[in-house]
């Protein structure tokens, strides 16, 4: 790092010197445009969405009359409530699957890999940056009627007719979501595992704990912040996922994202769509809080945080 010398020192103006001296002020000045942008492009639209959910649709127009009618309509429709409930369950199943399958790998990279740690991390990071749409689409190829699994089984002579149960059901959605979101689980868990002080593990071993007990009493509790972060990072956005259920879910695997889309598309009832979105976000937040409450008892997440 070379700092170019030679330019004569400028005399700073008073404002400049004040900004120069106060690093906190400088921080706020730097972040102000970003906060303004996020406020304008996210908080304001979300606020308007909330407002819209209390209006009503009349023909092609949205009428700005305050009403709870949309929420009443949603809560009064068992079919739509069922879709929301199913979305929560499917996301929960996908989240649990990802975390369970990814934890051992994160542990292996954190503790078992000595030489090629960066390479392993790169290998699990690359899919994170590649097209979500295409990673989901790939499962359609694998599970489809004429797909990879069916055609392989037929050419091996194990089945004579393609299995129809592979695609277009909630299990296909869980499987696809779990696969597509795997890197989101692995990295937070890896980070919290690699922050664990090794001497704690050694101490427990020296004191005669078996590896299993070390895991249950030291490693798992200390890695809980990563597990919690991973779970929330996957659970919250997947509840509203649109692409996966649309591509591999079929009618039985539809989720709340598809319901919302239909309100803004074919059904053309924007206020009801807005109300369903708000209801879904409230349900997700409630589920996330419940999850945090439960895990904070088990893992003592506060104590493990640095």
């Amino acid at each position: 790092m070379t700092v170019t010398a030679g330019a004569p020192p400028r005399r700073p103006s008073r404002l400049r010197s004040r900004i120069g001296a106060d690093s906190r002020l400088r921080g706020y000045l730097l972040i102000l445009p970003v906060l303004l942008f996020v406020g304008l492009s996210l908080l304001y639209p979300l606020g308007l969405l909330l407002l819209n959910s209390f209006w009503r649709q009349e023909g092609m127009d949205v009428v700005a009359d305050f009403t709870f009618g949309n929420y009443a309509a949603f809560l009064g429709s068992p079919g739509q409530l069922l879709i929301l409930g199913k979305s929560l369950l499917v996301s929960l199943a996908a989240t649990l699957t990802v975390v369970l399958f990814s934890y051992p790998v994160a542990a292996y990279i954190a503790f078992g890999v000595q030489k090629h740690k960066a390479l392993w991390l790169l290998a699990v990071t690359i899919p994170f940056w590649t097209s979500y749409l295409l990673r989901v689409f790939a499962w359609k190829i694998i599970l489809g009627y004429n797909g990879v699994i069916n055609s392989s089984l037929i050419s091996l002579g194990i089945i004579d007719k393609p299995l129809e149960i592979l695609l277009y059901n909630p299990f296909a959605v869980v499987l696809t979501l779990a696969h597509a979101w795997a890197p989101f689980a692995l990295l937070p868990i890896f980070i919290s595992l690699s922050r664990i002080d090794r001497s704690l593990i050694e101490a427990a071993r020296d004191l005669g704990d078996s590896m299993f007990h070390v895991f249950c009493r030291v490693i798992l509790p200390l890695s809980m912040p990563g597990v919690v972060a991973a779970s929330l990072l996957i659970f919250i956005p997947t509840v509203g996922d649109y692409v996966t259920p649309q591509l591999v879910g079929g009618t039985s695997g539809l989720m709340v994202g598809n319901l919302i889309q239909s309100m803004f598309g074919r059904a053309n009832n924007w206020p009801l769509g807005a109300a369903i979105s708000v209801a879904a976000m409230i349900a997700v937040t409630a589920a996330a809080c419940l999850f945090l409450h439960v895990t904070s008892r088990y893992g003592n997440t506060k104590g493990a945080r640095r």
Partner: protein
Amino acid sequence: MKTGGKTLAAYSALYVAALYAPILFIAIFAFNAGTTIAFPLKGFTLQWFSQVFAAPALLEALWNSVRVALTASIVSTVLGTLAAKAVSRPNLPGRAVFLGLIGLPLLVPGIVVGISLLIVATGFGLTLSLSTIAFAHILFCTPFAMMIMLPRFEGMDPSIEEASRDLGEGPFMTFRRVVLPIAAPGILSSLMLTFSVSLDEFVLAFFLAGTDSTLPIFIWSQLRFPNRLPGVLALSTLILAFSFVLVLIAEKLRRMGASASSEGA
């Protein structure tokens, strides 16, 4: 213990293989001469790739995607860099709130962000176009840019900045001549990764596109037609290959820069 470690290693290798397998199938069938996606393979062909570039609608979508991704990557990297510099001070009051707020677009389901922006755009009487997509993509890419830039600034020795200021440079010149050169590899890495994120983003674009089309929207529209599947596979393979190269370079840059700044600290 020894066998346990071996099992874990084997399992981890299997996990990574499973991570890549579905993508690999896309590539395999893109070179398959048969028109259906089924084993056994019918032979090697490049005809689907030549078909890809024969479709004018695709070329237009590609050009649209590139323009949107360029805009989104540049603006979001500027915003992400500013935010990362600000929150790299661990004791900045309100730091956690800022981090949460800027990271929010990653947590709120894409469809909810999409329809909210749709409501705003219609309310203002804006015509949906590439500009509305680019706007949404800036919002979506900024947290990624911040995530990439933050470790760089956190690893930076604050005394370098102080030295520059003591030597009489104003804050803006200090930023340009001291902070920016240190941050440069991260900025390049952020530009590439946010470009890739924007190029691949579908849901926001789907809601905000109007009559314009981007590459993922084009692919989505083709999925309904089974006879166009081989062409979609070829196009997907090209996109994935491009993303892979971009990400590999970006990650390399990020690592390289990270080790340089920690040596300097």
